[in-house]
């Protein structure tokens, strides 16, 4: 097993799936010669040629629309939106067609495509390069929405996403891209879509998060353990759609307390749904209000204020302590 960062792990997933299956074709802006602005597709043009790694003109809607056509025809396109902040140009295509083609044609045509997009803040980028608007996709029926949190999981989930018979929106936390390395096996590994995982076991409070926010969440759990002797169970959602509520419900039934962490805006964010599920399925176990440690309801600011926008260890531990003190 090699130690890889998330970029390398994603590259491995793409390479291996392309080797295995000639239906897999990549397309996107600057993914070929340049290897992608984050280098996720580095080397793939050389290896697979311009018929399988398409540098596209600058038009997100057509990238998605062309992918839909390819997928209907029997290919397995993996398209890249250079930044999630520009993926909304393709929302109407994904909403109107990718998500509906199966139902519209009563199962005759399917759209097994993956739409990849780096998302999230923390890398001191320009405006529109740091958003976290996964809800647009997660609320859209017919799409799946996945957000990995570590290199190994990113690789396994991307392989599953490519093989999935339905369209998958795959948000990659760019703050994690090069943040740390993890052992990633050369052999095939998949991870089922629609399954969450326990990222850290604990019995005092349940922390629920995903994507880039998992890092500060785990840090916060460590700090709370070390400083307060509080053991948080950390649930990593991984898929927002289908949302797996089994693990966090179980956990909350055990701990009675929960805090949801994400960098997306609080209002109508993913945390709301998590709380709604807890209320629906585990209300009587709740010993305190479920708090949210999230981004604020403002556009994520330019980088001087970015860290104050993002839910960091401080915001998380504070929410946990308040929840425990309730």
């Amino acid at each position, binding site marked *: 097993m090699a130690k890889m960062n998330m970029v390398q792990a994603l590259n491995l997933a793409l390479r291996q799936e392309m080797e295995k299956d000639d239906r897999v*074709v990549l397309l996107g802006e600057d993914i070929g010669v340049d290897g992608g602005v984050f280098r996720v597709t580095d080397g793939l043009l050389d290896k697979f040629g311009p*018929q399988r790694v*398409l540098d*596209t*003109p600058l*038009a997100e*809607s*057509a990238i*998605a*629309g*062309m*992918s*839909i*056509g*390819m*997928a*209907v*025809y*029997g*290919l397995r*396109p993996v398209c890249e939106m250079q930044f999630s902040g520009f993926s909304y140009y393709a929302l*109407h*295509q994904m909403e*109107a*067609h990718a998500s509906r*083609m*199966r*139902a*519209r*044609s*009563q*199962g*005759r*045509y*399917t759209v097994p495509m993956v739409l990849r997009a780096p998302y999230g803040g923390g890398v001191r980028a320009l405006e529109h390069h740091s958003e976290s608007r996964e809800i647009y996709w997660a609320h859209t*029926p*017919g799409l*799946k929405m996945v957000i990995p949190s570590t290199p190994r999981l990113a690789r396994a989930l991307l392989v599953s996403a490519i093989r*999935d*018979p*339905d369209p998958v929106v795959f948000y990659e936390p760019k703050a994690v891209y090069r943040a740390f390395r993890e052992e990633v096996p050369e052999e095939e590994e998949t991870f089922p879509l*629609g399954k969450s995982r326990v990222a850290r076991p604990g019995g005092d409070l349940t922390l629920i998060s995903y994507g880039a926010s998992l890092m500060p969440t785990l840090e916060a759990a460590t700090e709370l353990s070390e400083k307060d002797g509080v053991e948080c169970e950390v649930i990593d959602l991984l898929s927002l*759609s*289908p*949302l*797996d*509520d*089994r693990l966090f419900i179980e956990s909350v039934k055990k701990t009675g307390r929960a805090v949801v962490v994400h960098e997306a805006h609080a209002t109508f964010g993913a945390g709301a749904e998590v709380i709604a599920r807890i209320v629906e399925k585990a209300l009587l176990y709740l010993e305190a209000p479920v708090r949210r440690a999230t981004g604020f309801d403002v556009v994520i600011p330019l980088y001087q204020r970015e860290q104050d926008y993002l839910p960091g260890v401080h915001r998380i531990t504070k929410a946990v302590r308040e929840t425990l003190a309730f």
Partner: protein
Amino acid sequence: MPIREIDLPNRVKYLSILDQEGQVDEALDPRLSEELLLRLYRGMVLARRFDERMLIMQRQGKIGTFAPIKGQEAQVGAAAALEENDWIVPSFREAPVEIWRGKPMESILLYYSGYSEGGEIREGLNMLPVSVPVGSQMSHAVGIGFGMKYRGQKSVAATFFGDGATSQGDFHEALNFASVYQVPVVFICQNNHWAISLPRGRQTNSATLAQKALAYDMAAVQVDGNDVLAVYSAVKEAVDRGRGGGGPTLIEMVTYRLSMHTTADDPKKYRSEQEVAEWESRDPITRFEKYLTNRGVLDEQQVRSITQEIKAQISQAEQRWQEAAQKRIDPLGMFEHAYAELTPALRDQREMLKKELEDKK
């Protein structure tokens, strides 16, 4: 040469073959077999009659809103220029093309009477379902065209859309991608002069829609869209170009929507009777009928028997539709085909609706 005119390779041509009196231009005549000529005639008449029938059914409340095709029947010429392996990516005003390709009329009735099952598409039909969001389907044809090229298939994808659709950004992006990747796609714009209440002249400020291809150095032609032979020829040329690796083509079919935009629309609000009357005199069916009669391919007797056959065919389709509609009312069907497999939430929701339906019984 500090100031000079740039020499652009492409020009836009206009093509018509049959005039309004049914006189053919011998030099341009595609010389189709009599059998095909009769099939084209039949396809147009069937489309017209079915459209009329649907309008009545809509007014009777038997089916819901739909988009009549009256006046645009010469589109079957486009379908006829395609082969089975070619794909069709329609918009919502291509019932004639869809029926030509093999979509059962009962399917169309099911769809417009609110049954999702009307979207069913037979294996091998190589035709996407109706696409309602204007302009959004063209890039799918580009993807399909890419797939054909990737697989080394000598087939093409033909996509249909209206004059209004040319205003959408997606139109531009699809044409640009098609030209960049030189995919075998035929873009067929049915310029029927209206996008609901907006006349063609206010949809865009260009003299033609065909010339929009110049932006992509793409082959283009404007064709008399009420002339089924011209439509056939133009599409055939484009199909051959695509099949031969010559890339995409934009075809503007100049035609007219004689009926309302949809059954929810009242065209009297925005256009004159006179304009409609003028276009009625350019009816694609009358013209073709004259031509066939002049050529001796068709006589009154045949017209009558074709009319009879078509009537029977339509009423059989209606019957099959009624049978199907009765079978297909299970509300739980809405959970079918949401994903390959039901998600846990959908399983719960399906259960919930099931109980609700039992309660209501």
